[in-house]
């Protein structure tokens, strides 16, 4: 039942004995991205996942039924559900990342749907930057191709811990175990050089629905479970850095008789009483309280947004970072990073940019481009003059004042950066700090 507030009939607030079923409110959240070549079936797969989990509404379904008919498709074309993309292609618009949502009783899912063209590496990087997991689609007829390697490499570069290789269109190879095993072997051979923690292989047909939501009877030789049950159960609880205490200060929070520091825990488990050091100043203190509007808490972990108060009155501001004294980041004015270039104006040595790292902003100069990845051969090329749009390379960066860095492989938050063009204010590069 609802009660009224302040005897005001216009306003209702639920009383504490709410009848809402709590179990569905305690789901966890998995963010994943899709990769694969054009026509491997990404759109069909996402459509299938949403359709089979009843995440498509009647008016949306009617709309795609109608356009399927207009197009002369035999069945309802599930790809149309996500394919604002198709229209984009026809209109020649820059193809972009789109986000989709669905939920099961176990988890809520956020899909970063990235298009598969070679030239859109930057979109894949964008989608992968926030993902816990990547589904790499492989056409069962074609097996591991260049694009598979490229996307797997990007996923590993962005430190996505979990990869599901969905061998799609199994219906077109008679659900052949042999073909599936061959693809698996080829893939593992390729990925062993890259290094990914968790790789699974699933034979599917996005079109017919085999092993997408329900286990298929046509692949009795496969026992790893359908795609959805893998998505629902993959262990993601320790995908964050829980070792190295990191709390970048976003904003000083003041109220009468109160001064605290608002921010998000970007690493480690921060507890009341912990000894911390403010960087770059180097002042040491201890955590007095951890506050939220719902009350004080004893500990906070990634990615919680909280307010901390300190036992010493330090004059700290945005851009500084509180680190636990037992595991401090490096304070650096020169370091190397892998950059994915995202702008039509290429990067040349000597260019200056604004560098954003956690809540900190400094001026930066790229002092050298050390190598560039040949996305076709996956080999690095030395003797590089510039980095063009969608190219990936290793650079050395100098900053005007120190930044508190970790290697990206250690901490995704304190190991990542973006470069911003000072003139246009556009975001021109994504960077993963290497040392």
């Amino acid at each position: 039942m609802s009660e009224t507030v302040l005897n005001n009939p216009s306003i209702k607030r639920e009383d504490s004995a709410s009848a809402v079923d709590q179990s569905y409110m305690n789901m966890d959240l998995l963010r994943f991205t899709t990769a694969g070549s054009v026509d491997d079936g990404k759109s069909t797969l996402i459509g299938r996942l949403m359709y089979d989990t009843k995440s498509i509404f009647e008016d949306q379904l009617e709309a795609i039924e109608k356009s399927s008919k207009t197009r002369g498709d035999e069945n309802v074309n599930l790809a149309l559900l996500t394919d604002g993309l198709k229209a984009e292609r026809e209109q020649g618009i820059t193809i972009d990342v789109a986000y989709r949502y669905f939920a099961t009783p176990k988890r809520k899912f956020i899909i970063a749907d990235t298009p598969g063209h070679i030239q859109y590496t930057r979109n894949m990087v964008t989608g992968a930057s926030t993902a816990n997991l990547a589904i790499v689609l492989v056409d069962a007829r074609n097996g591991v191709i260049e694009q598979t390697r490229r996307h797997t490499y990007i996923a590993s570069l962005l430190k996505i811990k979990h990869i599901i290789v969905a061998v799609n269109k199994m219906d077109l190879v008679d659900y052949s175990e042999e073909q599936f095993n061959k693809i698996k072997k080829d893939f593992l051979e390729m990925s062993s050089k890259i290094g990914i923690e968790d790789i699974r292989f699933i034979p599917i047909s996005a079109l017919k629905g085999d092993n997408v939501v329900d286990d298929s009877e046509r692949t009795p030789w496969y026992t790893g479970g359908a795609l959805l049950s893998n998505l629902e159960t993959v262990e993601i609880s320790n995908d964050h850095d829980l070792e190295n205490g990191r709390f970048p200060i976003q904003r000083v929070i003041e109220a009468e008789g109160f001064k605290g520091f608002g921010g998000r825990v970007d690493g480690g488990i921060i507890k009341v009483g912990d000894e911390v050091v403010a960087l770059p100043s180097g002042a040491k203190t201890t955590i007095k309280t951890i506050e939220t509007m719902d009350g004080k808490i004893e500990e906070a972990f990634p990615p919680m947004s909280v307010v901390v108060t300190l036992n010493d009155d330090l004059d700290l501001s945005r851009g500084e970072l509180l680190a636990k004294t037992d595991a401090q980041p490096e304070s650096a004015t020169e370091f190397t990073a892998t950059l994915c270039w995202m702008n039509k104006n290429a990067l040349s040595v000597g260019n200056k940019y604004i560098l954003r790292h956690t809540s900190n902003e400094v001026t930066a100069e790229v002092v050298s481009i050390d190598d560039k990845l040949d996305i076709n051969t996956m080999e690095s090329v030395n003797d590089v003059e510039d980095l063009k749009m969608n190219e990936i390379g290793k650079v050395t960066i100098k900053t005007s004042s120190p930044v508190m860095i970790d290697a990206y492989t250690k901490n995704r938050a304190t190991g990542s950066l973006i470069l911003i063009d000072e003139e246009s204010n556009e975001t021109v590069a994504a960077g993963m700090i290497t040392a």
Partner: protein
Amino acid sequence: MQSYTLTHLKQLESEAIYVFREVVSQFERPAMLFSGGKDSIVMLHLARKAFWPGKVPFPLIHVDTGHNFPEAIDYRDWLVEEYDLDLIVGSVQGSIDKGTAVEETGTNPSRNGLQAITLLETLEEYNVDAAFGGGRRDEEKARAKERFFSHRDEFGQWNPKNQRPELWTLYNGRYNDYEHFRIFPISNWTEMDVWQYIAQERIALPSIYFAHKRKVVNRNGILLAESPWNTLLKDEVYEEKLIRYRTLGDMTCTGAVLSDADDLAGIIQEVASSRTTERGNRSDDKRSEAAMEERKLQGYF
């Protein structure tokens, strides 16, 4: 070992708080667009959390069409008082009087289209460089590509062809003269998340979100409320029905849905089994019992 995970609602909450703090630090004059609907009510709740125990450090902007549900205005005024907020009201009537907006002609003029004019005028008047909105990416296809920090050019236009890439949570709010940003802190929320969060946080809502009796007329399948701005057409009559609102807008165009959901548990049940998007305003009449059963059977709700 204890598992350090957050529920989906806690993760979405933390993400929104992070966005609020970024914006207030990166921009000079942010403001929140407050429609009085559930999305903006949730957004305000998150803003309070972001700056607590401090005050919400920016004003709310309400575009008043003059065609509001009285409950929505009561709610707004209660909220402002209760949480010590600053409110700016942009008046569509004001724009009409000034001559910058022109009232529709005909029997039942809607001021829906005029809101944008008043909004832009208000943003300009207060020099707002970042306007928070309650848009969600699940609402429609075009929104699926919207950024958290959505850049608007000097003409206030969104250019979906040339959006800034948004990597990790490193948001870039830098802009050139005359440009500004729209900010969507609840981008990643679905309609269900919003309702679950309202239940979890015991957030007060305008009462018209809950089932109540009201006189409505069925016009082209949309149940319109009796109001001073609605003139009955030939052969139309008002009938009293048990209804509630799924979204809030002007009385002249917001359709009610037949519903007996008078508490959040009921509403959440209804959202779960609904087969139409909240935007597809074909009333929930079409909702079949079978749909509800289907979902229950499959364990989705």
